[in-house]
């Protein structure tokens, strides 16, 4: 198995140019999501979806320094260490690749849609016209040819970096340290299992200059399947209980009232 790779997305370097969104659509041949002005700053694609696998958020805020701060973040599939979509997928369409990334095999997916609510980040979506589930592939095809993902390659300010996650982790940690020294309120998001037990760490993690919620990231995401054992136990007991009721109904009190 080849080395585990992923993304480091640094919001402190993002200029919100959306090159990542377009480079992704170009390489992956994705259609537009329609033409509507949302009035939400410069964000007119709103969220990650079946045809938008990189999405740039624009948060306008007042800050002590500028009076105004405009924070931008390029969101993407997190390729979780424990991936809800992967573990939920009944067909085996979703797999973990040799690069450690999570990949939906379009030739297998039958569009059951279970991976959609199974993602704690709301990344996966089922295409209305196509019927299948889609999300960032970490440019699996490009990786097979030793090419870096289209978004990371295009990013003019290296806000998106691609590489072995070990190296990215070190880089991110150093970066946050440096930013803190400059007085920037910077923090890591999802860089390790320790930092984010709910997912056991992300392969696409972030340097944030604000609370995760400001970028619609759950502060404490939980991969649902982590609690599935308890559910099954409960199911077992419930089934037994139902059986008991049935058998009880049969055994106690005769065939006539």
């Amino acid at each position: 198995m080849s080395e585990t790779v992923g993304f480091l997305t640094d919001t402190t370097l993002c200029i919100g140019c959306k090159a990542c969104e377009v480079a992704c659509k170009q390489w992956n041949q994705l259609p537009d999501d329609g033409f509507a002005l949302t009035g939400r700053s410069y964000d007119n694609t709103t969220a990650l979806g079946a045809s938008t696998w990189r999405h740039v958020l624009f948060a306008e805020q007042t800050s002590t320094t500028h009076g105004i701060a405009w924070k931008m973040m390029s969101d993407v599939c997190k390729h979780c260490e424990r991936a809800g979509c992967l573990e939920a997928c009944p067909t085996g369409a979703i797999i973990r690749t040799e690069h450690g990334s999570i990949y939906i095999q379009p030739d297998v997916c039958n569009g059951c849609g279970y991976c959609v609510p199974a993602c704690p980040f709301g990344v996966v979506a089922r295409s209305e016209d196509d019927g299948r589930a889609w999300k960032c592939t970490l440019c699996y095809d490009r990786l097979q040819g030793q090419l870096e993902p289209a978004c990371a390659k295009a990013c003019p300010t290296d806000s998106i970096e691609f590489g072995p996650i070990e190296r990215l982790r070190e880089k991110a940690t150093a970066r946050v340290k440096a930013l803190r020294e400059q007085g920037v309120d910077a923090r890591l998001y999802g860089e390790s299992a320790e930092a984010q037990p709910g997912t056991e760490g992300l392969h696409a993690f972030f340097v944030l200059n604000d609370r995760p919620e400001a970028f619609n990231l759950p502060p404490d995401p939980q991969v649902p399947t982590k609690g599935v054992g308890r559910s099954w136990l409960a199911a077992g007991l419930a089934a037994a209980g139902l059986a008991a009721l049935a058998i009880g109904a049969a055994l106690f009190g005769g065939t006539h009232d």
Partner: protein
Amino acid sequence: MRRDVTALGDTARSARSDELRPRTEAADRVVKSVCPYCAVGCGQLVYVKDEKITDIEGDPDSPISEGCLCPKGAATRQLVTGEHRGKQVLYRRPGGTAWEPIALETAMDMVADRVAATRAETWQDELPDGRSVRRTLGIAHLGGATLDNEENYLLKKLYTALGIIQVENQARI
């Protein structure tokens, strides 16, 4: 890799996934190009397969762009291969309410006729005060700044020889 009892890995892989390759590998040729949008001058690589452009992305060799592109640059393939591209010469006659397709050669002849005629009719050898000018004010040109240097050169050379001086450019705008 570890035994895949949970079927989260290899056992679930499809044949297609095993054979996945970047489409650029199938290209017949890769052409070095330059982004046509702003003046930063990012390097582009144009991948061609069966005389069709299959991909356009940044050229990592470029000292200016190092493989990066902005959203416009990243959309270049849609710009050059999109449905919007006109493929036919269109003509709108005086008072006409719609375009009419015409042949390229015919259109070129018609334009040449009009240039010749307008130039002849509006030629100005000298100003009222007798100072010579040798020009026409009957024809003007406005050019975009995404034209090649060679194209601007031929246009300026031709217009000047024709005595056309109202030659202007986006650079002024």
